[in-house]
């Protein structure tokens, strides 16, 4: 298929696949280049142990992130977001804010371009801030690492989710109530899940939310 004759969405998937898989290869080239340049090969035992510790969990989390975030970010936003990372703490809330601001819905043509613009802007700004931070790492590190600021940065996620929660839950209180209560009960009763692995419960919460919403929709509570 000629790229000129493609629709915007076809083009997004076409270029998205090239960029995302291309960047995936580039990311794999880095450890390969390190092996060759320093003649330093990974220890088979350590590699195996490390992967066993990391891969099953994070591949599961990664899969769930794709299923959850792709419909929110849209195609373009996803092809960019899954390479630039920091989805939960940055790209997703950023996109939600942008969509709310212009009143666009995810899944619509307008939502698609707004999502892409939000993710792209956020990616560029993040890269620039970290670049400046790395340049100034010597004077900055003691300030940012100071013990008096530590409690603030430790609480960045609760501080983000509170505000984001109000913005999201306020849009549809009835749909929110059942999953919110269920998840609070779950994590209070099973605190060992409440870490980065906790994200695997998103589909569970979504299924609970969808089931509850379906019942409310059928009996006419949701107009």
């Amino acid at each position, binding site marked *: 298929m000629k790229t000129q004759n493609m629709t915007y969405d076809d083009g997004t998937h076409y270029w998205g696949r090239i960029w995302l898989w291309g960047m995936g290869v580039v990311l794999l080239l880095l450890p390969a280049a390190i092996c060759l340049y320093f003649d330093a090969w990974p220890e088979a035992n350590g590699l195996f142990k490390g992967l066993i510790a990391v891969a099953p969990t994070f591949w599961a989390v990664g899969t769930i992130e794709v299923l959850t975030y792709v*419909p929110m970010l849209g195609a373009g936003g996803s092809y960019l977001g899954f390479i630039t990372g920091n989805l939960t703490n940055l790209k997703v809330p950023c996109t939600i804010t942008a969509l709310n601001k212009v009143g666009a819905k995810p899944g619509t043509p307008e939502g698609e371009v707004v999502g892409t613009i939000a993710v792209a802007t956020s990616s560029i700004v993040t890269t620039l801030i970290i670049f400046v931070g790395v340049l100034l790492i010597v004077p900055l590190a003691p300030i940012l690492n100071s013990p008096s600021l530590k409690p603030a940065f430790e609480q960045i996620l609760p501080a983000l989710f509170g505000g984001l929660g109000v913005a999201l839950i306020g849009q549809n209180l009835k749909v929110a109530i059942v999953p919110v209560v269920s998840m609070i009960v779950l994590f209070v009763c099973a605190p060992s899940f409440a870490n980065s692995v906790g994200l695997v419960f998103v589909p569970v919460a*979504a299924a609970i939310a969808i089931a509850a919403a379906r019942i409310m929709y059928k009996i006419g509570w949701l107009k």
Partner: protein
Amino acid sequence: MNHEFSVNSPFLFAAVSIILLLVMAQAVFFLVRAWRQAKKLGIDTVKLKSVVKSSAIFTVVPAISILLGVIALSKKLGIPLPWLRLSVIGALTYETTAAEAAASAVGSSMGDTSTLLTASQFSTIIWVMTLGIMAGVILTPIISRRLLNGVDTLEKRDKRWGEILMSALFMGMISTFLGIVFGKVNTGLVGWIPVFVMLVSMVIMLICVVLIKKLKIKWVEDYALPISMIGAMALAIPITNAVNSAVR
């Protein structure tokens, strides 16, 4: 080739810079495409600029927290690797866990900053961190089209239900995050700190909503989420201190 290894080798800085330039190129590529498409759809430039502005403003605080992650990891891994991993693909929560798991697998630890990593240990760590995070990169192109078409079909069949379904997906996500905040309440008052901070953030957001909706102060819109986040983070300091002194 056998060059002397250092976690801050110029070779690593050069390689990371090239990759970051490529990622920036990808971001600009998608930004330009989406911008042109938005004009074709007849979306007002003022509206698009406001999307860019609010996205940029929102990004600042989380980006600084990511920078903190770079600083924390750089003590053991040097600057280039954490710089790359947290600018692209990685997330704060993932990289710290993955680096620790990989470091302990090669018989080291992220906390042990006094012994230097050997080249072979470093190479093992970077392979583990890279392979561990590839799920999203591999799966997105395979799944996303089908997934988006599925959502689309559903919305066409029953528009209202499609909207409710999307909203239920958002609620599933946010309720999991809110639930995780409660994960430490069993450990006593200290475990409630995240909950208090979250409540503060909610209250500030509600005040912003009142300012926007009732008092029609429009400029607050762009800053509502950053304000509630920074406000709650700032108040996290006295909250933490108060809880600690109450416990003691």
